[in-house]
């Protein structure tokens, strides 16, 4: 179990309990966090689950894998701390993580 905080573009904060082994995208969808669309259901095929990972979690979750980096090409306003939330696994290591949701998903 890990606590994850999502901050949407308008500044609203959503704190959710995410299950180990699920993904940061799934935790957002199950808790109705707005702004994460996840059209492809986590297949790393749509880039509509784009988030910005806040420090110090950027290093902890590490950089995107090549396939995710390719998919990020389709994201909107991609920044160095951009990740696709369906590709971040939940574990105790990310307990307390804060991610920001971009103001649009492409």
């Amino acid at each position: 179990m890990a606590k994850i905080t999502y901050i949407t573009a308008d500044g609203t904060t959503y704190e959710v309990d995410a299950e180990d082994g699920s993904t940061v995208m799934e935790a957002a969808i199950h808790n109705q966090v707005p702004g994460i669309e996840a059209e492809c259901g986590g297949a790393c095929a749509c880039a509509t689950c784009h988030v910005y990972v806040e420090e110090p979690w950027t290093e902890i979750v590490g950089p995107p894998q090549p396939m995710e980096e390719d998919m990020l090409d389709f994201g909107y306003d991609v920044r160095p701390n951009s990740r696709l939330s369906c590709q971040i696994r939940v574990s105790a290591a990310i307990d307390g993580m804060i991610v920001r949701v971009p103001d649009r998903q492409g």
Partner: protein
Amino acid sequence: MSAPIETDVVIVGAGPVGLFSVFELGLNDISCHLVDILDRPGGQCAELYPEKPIYDIPGYPEITAQGLIDKLMEQIKPFNPTFHFSQMVESLERLPDGRFGLTTDAGTTFRCKAVVIAAGGGSFQPKRPPVAGIEAYEGTSVHYAVRRMDDFRGQDVLIVGGGDSALDWVLNLQPVAKSITLLHRRDDFRAAPHSVDQMRALVADGKVSLVIGQVQSLKGDNGQVTAAVVKDKDNNELEIACTKVLPFFGLTMKLGPVANWGINLEENLIPVDTARFETSEPGIFAIGDINTYPGKIKLILCGFHEAALMTQAVYKIVYPEKRHVFQYTTSSSSLQKKLGVL
């Protein structure tokens, strides 16, 4: 425009459900043609997640999405369906003789007795890049595909993206355009390695300029772009002069022309009855992800079931005078002959 193709059924969409319909219709001596915007069969399975395993196809504890499509193609082979790829069905109308007329954006026309809409999540269409106000330039100086290379002759072309489409058009348009700039958010390309090498050689020769960054906005008026404002990787803003922009940001699914065919819709889905899977228009059927009814779930296996029931209803339209005889493939010699196993 060439002469219309005459067939029993036209299937709009060659996703898994459209493909399996060929099998069910074929067993009942109903011939069909399939049309899909993509350049290959498989719909979402082929375009969105070919390498991913699927675990809920009956009889296959695990099969990749592409693997399933390959198996379906093998299964429908005895029926020799004709595919029309890279074409979108644009119009569908009822003809005075009660049949249907369909036309694709490539000018192919069909005359058929029944239509099966297996359009899934809708048609795959190019994604609009996240640039405010880009709509104003679409069709005049912003294009999502190259229809005629001549339109780019003597133009300052800005190509945005890092995949195969972007790189292919850099290479193909370079000889005809006045200038080519390739803009991509990172200095790493998804495209085939040999295209990347060719592009890098053109950049080294000064024939193509490569900019690493993201488009912020477009400048111009009356639909004519004059420049793109770009933020480079160090967050500096720069302007790239251009008269044509070609963004390649992948595909997304939109309902598309299905909305204009006079069929009742419910939140972008087609309501059907669960005995025939017929739409509000008799003779037009809808199966797979595109339809809705009480209890609907968007699963491949549900689409397969819908294909089997739809076929019973279509049979009565194609062969109004015949009585339908239910048979098992296991034991029916006539079905086995059709499948080429007897």
